[in-house]
């Protein structure tokens, strides 16, 4: 699924990485626990999280995750944008809950990691 379609499905806002909207993700994982994210081996993965801090971006960097959706109206901070830009990531803010976001994207065809 293309990033621009993810944004559209979630009525979300792209905060940084607008030039990568034609990139796509095949898998999705939803968690506020970065320790869980770090155990995943899947590639081409979207992360849905309500944890908005710099370590979320660091975790994505180490896990080769290029797109993150921040749910529950969480706000991305300038230091997160700086680190995400260095790593050519797309950061998206979404007003929906994690459950609703996950349900919409699952129905639209994104695959679970396991």
């Amino acid at each position, binding site marked *: 699924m293309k990033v621009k379609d993810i944004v559209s499905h979630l009525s979300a806002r792209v905060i940084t990485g607008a030039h990568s909207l034609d990139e796509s993700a095949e898998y999705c994982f939803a968690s*506020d*626990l*970065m*320790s*869980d*994210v*770090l*155990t995943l*081996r899947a590639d081409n993965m979207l992360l849905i999280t309500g*944890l908005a*801090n*710099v*370590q*979320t971006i*660091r*975790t994505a*960097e*180490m*896990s*080769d995750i290029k797109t993150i959706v921040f749910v529950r109206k969480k706000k991305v901070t300038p*230091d997160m944008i700086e680190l995400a830009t260095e790593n050519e990531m797309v950061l998206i803010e979404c007003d929906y809950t994690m459950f609703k976001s996950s349900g919409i994207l699952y129905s639209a065809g994104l695959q679970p990691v396991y």
Partner: protein
Amino acid sequence: MHLQYQVEGGNFTKAGLASSDLKRVLKLLNVDPKIIKRIVVALYEAEVNIVAHAWKGAIYIEIETEKINVLLVDEGPGIPDIEMAMQQGFSTASAVVREMGFGAGMGLPNIKNNSDELKIHSEVGVGTIVEFTINLNNEQ
């Protein structure tokens, strides 16, 4: 190739700087991306452990043709029972560490899962030494 980094205990804004730099170096060396991911995830877990639990630490990395060896030496409270610390779900992390998305007792087991060899030595009240090796040529 030898790389060395210092790690500050308690400073989460800097946690991951060493892992990030190592990832950059390994990409330049054209290491397989799947192996890079295993290496940097293992190092990041270990780096976060120092930030979360120790007062300060140092990371020494040796990159050879066939393997990478990572040594993390910290000054900190140490681990009283390493066997228990290796069990998934066991954690002594503070509320601050948990708020950062860590402290679920998954770090050491994940380092083991991603490495080909792992050794841990710890002395209570002195510190902990974590050493892991990952082969660069054969995928796990």
